[in-house]
């Protein structure tokens, strides 16, 4: 009996997704088309990347509110380096970046920002909420400074392909999201780092006493989340063929929503990347369905918020029963 209950809980996100798809399929004939399916996947790919990093953080009982701003900053820096390079007038030197170089620089910057988040949390015991809230503002400010408030556009066909190209009929961002998810699942399920992440989230004190280097694990986790937010930024920039200084606003909320809907506990230690992927797809399908049904954008926000609240309530009720 107890085993049955656990099984249902395990599959509740999947059941919710299937129910949502069936309802939307009945309400609009445009929903179950290959084109729409690929469109939904393309749209959720960015959130999957960000939410995967967020899952790792939430599993350690942390949170990262800065991912939207990190996405914007890293997207802008990648675009800026690729298009304009770096100028050193005093040395009469111009350093140009190939596409690979600009992307690597963007990912490294994301990792560095994540590391700074982790450092202020572990070194100075700043609550993750506050540390990353501060970084949200700092990164957005740097984005505005770097871009001077203007978009960086016309990055070329090759770069645009990262966001809008396809490989075997599947959009490139979807492939990138698949790679990210596979790596994250392997890390969380099959490696020592993954076990440490769950252990820290489950009981940080016990994990510390058992010899786990908590600071190091948290630094790695926040750095990974930063670089995944940067990857999201590169995809968004490539898709628009333009780095927008106001990109990624409120993306952190979609990422947290995906994590929560996917069944990861905000108090840490429980959840999975697979659940988060389902959570991200549920949000994507919900967004898509509401658009297809011509629901006002204002109501869309209300519905999305209500779904997140419902998911948390169901999760809490489940925890109480257990």
């Amino acid at each position, binding site marked *: 009996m107890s085993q049955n209950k656990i099984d249902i809980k395990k599959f509740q996100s999947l059941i919710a997704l299937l129910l949502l798809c069936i309802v939307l399929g009945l309400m609009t004939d445009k929903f179950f088309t290959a084109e729409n399916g690929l469109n939904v996947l393309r749209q959720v790919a960015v959130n999957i990347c960000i939410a995967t990093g967020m899952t790792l953080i939430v599993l350690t009982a942390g949170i990262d509110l800065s991912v939207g701003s990190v996405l914007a900053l890293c997207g802008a820096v990648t675009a800026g380096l690729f298009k304009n390079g770096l100028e050193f007038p005093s040395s009469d030197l111009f*350093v140009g970046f190939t596409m690979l170089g600009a992307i*690597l620089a963007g990912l490294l910057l994301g990792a560095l920002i994540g590391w700074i988040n982790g450092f202020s949390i572990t070194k100075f015991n700043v609550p993750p909420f506050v540390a990353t809230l501060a970084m949200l503002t700092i990164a957005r400010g740097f984005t505005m400074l770097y871009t001077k408030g203007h978009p960086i556009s016309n990055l070329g066909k090759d770069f645009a392909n990262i966001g809008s190209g396809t490989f075997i009929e599947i959009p490139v961002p979807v492939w990138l999201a698949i790679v990210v998810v596979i790596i994250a699942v392997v890390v969380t399920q099959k490696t020592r780092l993954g076990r440490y992440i769950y252990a820290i989230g489950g009981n940080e004190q016990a994990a510390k006493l058992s010899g786990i280097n908590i600071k190091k694990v948290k630094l790695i986790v926040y750095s990974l989340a930063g670089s995944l937010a940067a990857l999201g930024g590169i995809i968004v920039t490539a898709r628009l063929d333009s780095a927008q200084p106001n990109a990624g606003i409120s993306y952190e909320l979609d990422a947290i929503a995906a994590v929560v809907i996917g069944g990861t506990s905000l108090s840490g230690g429980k959840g999975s990347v697979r659940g988060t992927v389902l959570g991200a797809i549920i949000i994507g399908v919900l967004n898509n369905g509401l658009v297809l049904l011509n629901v006002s954008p204002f109501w869309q926000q209300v519905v999305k918020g209500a779904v997140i609240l419902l998911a948390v309530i169901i999760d809490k009720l489940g925890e109480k029963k257990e």
Partner: protein
Amino acid sequence: MNKYIKYILLLLAVVLVAYKSVYFEKLSERKSNNTAIAFDATAFSKKLWLQQFPVKLDNAVALPVLMEAINKSSTTAFTQYTNALAVGNYRYALVKLDAVVTSVKEDEVLINVQAGDSVLQASLATEFIYGNSIRDASGLVQVKDYPNTSDLNSISEALNKIVRSEVLPSFKSAVKKGNTVNAVAAVELNKEHIHWQGLEFIPLRISIKQ
């Protein structure tokens, strides 16, 4: 030994990635190359203003004619008399108008425009000349000719500056309430929601009747 091989392989990988990631040039050489092909929006707009705008202004449609055409068949009239670079409901036109000044304010001049049997209350912008109205209304600039959006924006910026500095100062210093003015102006129209009252005109050629 294994450890050293590992480090050497790692170093080689880093060097290879770096080699494929960055390249170096002399900044001065690069700048001189770029200057030769850089788009000079100010010079381009000045040339446009002096050589092509006069013809466009001479051939601008009279406001009452435009109003009648739109009332008769808006699709045809908007296609014939207006232009726009962006997709959307906003269209831009160059129009000739006669008006009586009803008030002179710091940043605009309020006017009454006689259009057929009706009198339109409108304004002439005299201080804040922003946006793409002038560029788009002229129909002289096409999106396909400019792969770089910032070049397109620079043209608008330069044209707005020309109007601010060359057209408006003499008018602003001379205009008084009760004057009758003749103008050719750029105007923005929403093709889905046409409101003739309260339009703002940007004067590109304007004179006060003595």
